[in-house]
């Protein structure tokens, strides 16, 4: 029986633990705060310390704030555990490369939880790109809007990297997955505002010539979470807007007190469960998952370049991306 040790009990831990438990693995959780509440709600057991967690598990799932990832990856690798690490891997390329080198040296697996690749409406688009349905991809547009994160560390640029590194890295990674390596990055961000609302735009020029425009908003006003995209190629164009294609639409029935009709928010399997299954399968000797440590590193490299573009007010050119080495049998 596999045991997964989740470190951290914040927002992302809930969907991760639910995904793991549905896969039938045992789960232990260690967190500075919130671990008892998390296991009370979903299941699993609390580990009293990081050492206890590392001793009890086969796979470590790091769900802590970004700035803590490197030291926890190093601790897990030293304990010989395979590792799932929440995105972004780290704030810098330097930290990410060190994390990857540590895991390679320790002979443990390491995957970044870029869950957007597992969201079904995104996955079908990537499949269409892979099959050639869209032909040569020429223009991609992604937009991701939501309320400001609740935990204060997200809003501290030094700790989270800000909206580009924390939020928009989802679409940066997905754009690169569809259109390949990136040659240059330009980013702009709204001026600091007393309300806290922040909007940013990242433009990627891929080595293929494809151009990608990625928007992100953290709104101080309460807003519904919304993602939308359009991908256009020589074979056609596809578009999606989470605001306009619910499979169930409810109006006028209150479910706040639990006795109304409340459709489940997700269609089919949770993308987090799909993601954890692919990672677990790979750890157990199966095929590599759809997102690898090399992808996680490139995502950090692009986010770092975008932040440099912000700081410089200039487009930033990236070194030519080297083809990923084939996954070694583990």
């Amino acid at each position, binding site marked *: 029986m596999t045991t997964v040790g989740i470190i951290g009990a914040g927002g992302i831990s809930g969907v991760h633990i639910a995904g793991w438990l549905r896969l039938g693995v045992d789960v232990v959780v260690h967190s500075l705060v919130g671990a008892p509440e998390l296991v009370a709600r979903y299941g699993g057991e609390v580990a009293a310390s990081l050492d206890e967690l590392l001793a009890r598990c086969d796979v470590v799932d790091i769900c802590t704030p970004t700035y803590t990832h490197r030291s926890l990856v190093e601790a897990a690798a030293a304990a010989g555990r395979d590792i799932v690490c929440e995105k972004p891997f780290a704030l810098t390329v330097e930290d990410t490369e060190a994390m990857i080198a540590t895991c390679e040296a320790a002979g443990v697996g390491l995957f970044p939880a870029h869950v957007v690749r597992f969201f079904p409406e995104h996955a079908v688009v990537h499949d269409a790109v892979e099959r050639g349905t869209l032909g*040569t991809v020429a223009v991609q547009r992604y*937009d991701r809007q939501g309320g400001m994160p609740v935990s204060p560390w997200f809003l501290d640029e030094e700790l989270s990297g800000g909206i580009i590194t924390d939020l928009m890295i989802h679409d940066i990674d997905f754009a690169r997955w569809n259109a390949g390596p990136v040659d240059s990055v330009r980013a702009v961000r*709204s001026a600091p505002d007393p309300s806290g609302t922040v909007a940013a735009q990242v433009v990627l020029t891929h080595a293929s*010539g494809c151009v990608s*425009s990625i*928007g992100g908003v953290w709104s101080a006003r309460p*807003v519904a979470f919304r993602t939308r995209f359009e991908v256009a190629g020589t074979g056609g164009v596809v578009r999606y807007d989470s605001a306009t294609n619910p499979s169930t639409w409810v109006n006028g029935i209150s479910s706040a007190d639990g006795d109304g009709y409340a459709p489940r928010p997700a269609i089919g399997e949770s993308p987090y469960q799909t993601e954890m299954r692919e990672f677990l399968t790979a750890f157990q000797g199966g095929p590599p998952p759809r997102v690898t440590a090399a992808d996680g590193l490139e995502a950090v490299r692009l986010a770092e370049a975008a932040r440099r573009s912000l700081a410089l007010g200039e*487009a930033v050119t990236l070194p030519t991306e080297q083809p990923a080495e084939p996954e070694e049998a583990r």
Partner: protein
Amino acid sequence: MKVALMSFAHTHALGYARLLGAMPGIELLASDPDSATRPAGESGGAALAAELGVAYVDTYDELLAWGPDAVVVCSENTRHRAHVEAAAAAGAAVLCEKPLATSVADAEAMVAACEAAGVPLMVAFPVRFSPAFADLVEQYRAGAVGTVHALTGTNNGQVPAARAWFTDPDLAGGGAMTDHTVHLADLADALLGGVPAVRVHATANNLLHPDAAVETAGIVTVTYADGTHLTIDCSWSRPASHSIWGGLTLSVVSDTGLIDIDPFAPRVTGWSEQTANELALGYGPNLDQLLLESFLEAVRTGTPPQPDGHVGVRTTAIVEAAYRSWREGRVVEVGRTSV
């Protein structure tokens, strides 16, 4: 009122001709001498005028000698300057198809020529007349939108197929970036009250139409003097087989929330068995009609029309900077304009 239509080169001329022809009190006369230089099979000249039911003369000299009160210029982009200058010299009010020009130097010369002649110059940006955009501007001015943080616009369409000149750099000045950046630049200009753009970044390709001599897809990022950023997807990314030519959207992020407008959203959709394609029944006001009515009203009353030549210069400056940015692979400053 006597209105002259110079050239059928831009296909918007056909719509203008039909609308002007149906307006009471408008005498319409057209000329399209350059139609002889267009590729075989493209409509134009006296034959097209007859089809549209519009009176026709063979030369621009005859057209302007007729003494029009107003001239609508619908020639190829790089010919706008000569035609606007000729119309101004003839003492006519001018409505010029967008983009006003393909260089700031040309645009400024056109504004100067119209000012010297004492005639108004308006640029044909119809989208700012859409009810959705007009409402956005009104509510913004009333304070309901709050502080604007960011603007994102899309203006996607099919590669213009009815006229070859759209993809001829000598006549069009460029491709999608020339054709589709300016509509959104105009909306931003109207919303932000003419705040000038200070920096531009652009990236583009012709992957969708590798044989085209111009870019067919692009992303342009504009930074205005007040700090607002506008990102425009100006791509001709709508497949040629699509039933709808394209569209335009504008998204606004402000401290009061998120606003998206889609001026072309008013449509009933379905499927056509006849064309084996989507069927879209658009409704709501014809934006070209609102544009023409606004221009003609300005000519009648002598009030300055909007968007005027200065808007044309500012939007041209953004496109000129976009090409410089794309060519040089860097963020560029927008040149100061003299008008």
